[in-house]
């Protein structure tokens, strides 16, 4: 780990981490796979934007409009550098990963998926990478197939071979990291198989991008989606990256202002990329705030973040597995998982566990995590999920474990 990495210093940047909840308990925030907290650097950037630079972008010629446009577009450049993206015009701002995937299903899928075609997704996808494809395949009379998950929480790659061998697969889509099991997908192997079969690939990077170094050029996929709010940025902003050669063939998603070149009564020509896909006044302030989040992450370094989370996850898996009555899901191989730990406690419903430990100030998620297909596969209604980020500490893991003891006490387990 870098010598400059100080968790105490980092925690000072997050004002919310100093507050108390319930009966004056310190907040232990362990729901980072859902959304992350925001550092002062991001909050202040957004405030500064509204206080000093607010104007609409890409239109007016006055000073404020120039500043706003510059601030908005500079985030696009930061993203290109952050993910090693070759062309900045391949980066489209959207509301989040969900909208990004829906954009692909609509603007690419509707003209490329035909009756009898197959789209392949996986059993550990978030609903956002299942439902858009259900809608599309139902509309087109195409089929949606699933790469299965084994008992270790890893994808069964033979399933992919089986579907690819039909010659009917027109898109393969998968999450780079499971939001329930934390499994890091073997993207390299999957992409190699798809490339060999000439099938385009969409990657849901919502869980991976905040926690590890991602290099779009070396990944060699075709579509890539992620969200700002899971990586210290504001809610309501996400990114869709599309390989330029594909993006150039795609129809618009939304029609309206900013996405046009010329509009006449019965015909319209489109603006250049990426503006063709950014209709209407975008969420300017939050794009600017997202830029500050990327600066913050780059300053710490993605490798440092990954190392911190490996250490914390290792510690947590070790401590939690010693708790009597706990069931932890997913692989034990730390090199294959991110800082996400799903578990059940005795036969208690996760809602009960989460409710009781909330009274100790510990915030974890309970429920199906928008992954009901996986819940069905695991044969559970729901799980508890603790998920870590750069500001979490071993002391917080200890508090989680201690709070579970209180649950056992209350239920006389």
């Amino acid at each position: 780990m870098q010598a400059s990495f100080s968790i105490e210093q980092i925690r000072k940047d997050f004002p919310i981490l100093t507050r108390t909840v319930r009966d004056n308990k310190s907040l232990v925030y362990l729901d980072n796979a859902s959304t992350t907290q925001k550092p002062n650097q991001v909050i202040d950037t957004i405030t500064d934007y509204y206080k000093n630079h607010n104007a609409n972008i890409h239109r007016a010629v006055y000073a404020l409009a120039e500043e706003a446009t510059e601030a908005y577009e500079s985030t696009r450049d930061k993203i290109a550098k952050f993910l090693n993206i070759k062309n900045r015009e391949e980066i489209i701002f959207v509301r989040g990963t969900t909208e990004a995937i829906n954009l692909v299903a609509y603007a690419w899928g509707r003209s490329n998926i035909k009756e009898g075609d197959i789209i392949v997704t996986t059993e550990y996808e978030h609903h956002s990478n299942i439902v858009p494809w259900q809608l599309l395949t139902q509309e087109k009379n195409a089929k949606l197939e699933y790469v299965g998950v084994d008992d270790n929480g890893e994808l069964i790659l033979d399933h992919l071979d089986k579907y690819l061998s039909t010659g009917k697969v027109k898109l393969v889509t998968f999450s780079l990291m499971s939001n329930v099991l934390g499994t890091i997908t073997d993207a390299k192997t999957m992409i190699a198989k798809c490339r060999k079969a000439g099938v385009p690939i969409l990657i849901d990077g919502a869980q991976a991008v905040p926690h590890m170094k991602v290099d779009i050029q070396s990944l060699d996929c075709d579509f890539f989606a992620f969200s700002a709010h899971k990586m210290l940025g504001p809610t309501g902003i996400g990114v869709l990256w599309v390989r330029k050669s594909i993006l150039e063939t795609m129809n618009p998603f939304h029609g309206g202002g900013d996405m046009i070149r010329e509009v006449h009564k019965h015909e319209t020509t489109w603006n250049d990329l990426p503006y063709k896909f950014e209709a209407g006044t975008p969420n300017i302030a939050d794009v600017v705030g997202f830029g500050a989040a990327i600066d913050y992450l780059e300053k710490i370094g993605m490798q440092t973040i990954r190392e911190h989370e490996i250490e914390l996850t290792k510690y947590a898996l070790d401590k939690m597995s010693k708790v009597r009555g706990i069931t932890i899901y997913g692989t034990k191989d730390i090199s294959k998982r991110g800082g996400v730990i799903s578990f059940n406690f005795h036969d208690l419903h996760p809602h009960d566990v989460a409710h009781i430990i909330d009274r100790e100030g510990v915030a974890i998620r309970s429920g199906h995590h928008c992954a009901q297909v996986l819940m069905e596969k695991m044969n559970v209604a729901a799980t508890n999920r603790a998920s870590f980020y750069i500001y979490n500490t071993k002391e917080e893991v200890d508090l989680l474990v201690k709070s579970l003891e209180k649950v056992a006490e209350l239920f006389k387990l």
Partner: protein
Amino acid sequence: MSDPLYTEIIIDEARHPQNHGKLEHPDIAQHDANPMCGDSITLQMNVKDNSISDIKWDGKGCTICTACTSVLTQLVKGKDIDFAKNLKKETILSELGLEHLIQQSPIRIKCALLSLKVLKLGLYSYLANKLENKGFDNLKEEAASLY
């Protein structure tokens, strides 16, 4: 340790729920789920002489949901359909000392009332079939406004 929500009576009820299981030939079978948490409850009932002669429940739910479902089935078993149809959420909640949920926990009250919703949906569908849809909209509206 004690907790204002997880009282002994609730934990006991949930650990030893009544009327759990399935009926062989139910006259009414109704299922619903809470989209937020994935809790799901199926209620099955037999009707004899306009009363609920037997009732069983099956499904997955948290402690609050399970305790309330158990109490609900005990309350309506052997009672007239009209009694069950007019059962108020306050009645269920007060059986377990959960009235405070109405004010204090908009999230957990849905756990508490899922089975009541299923009961009413089931009864209303049953009645609507018998009534040949006369008054069905009123029944649906009443069921939907439970929360």
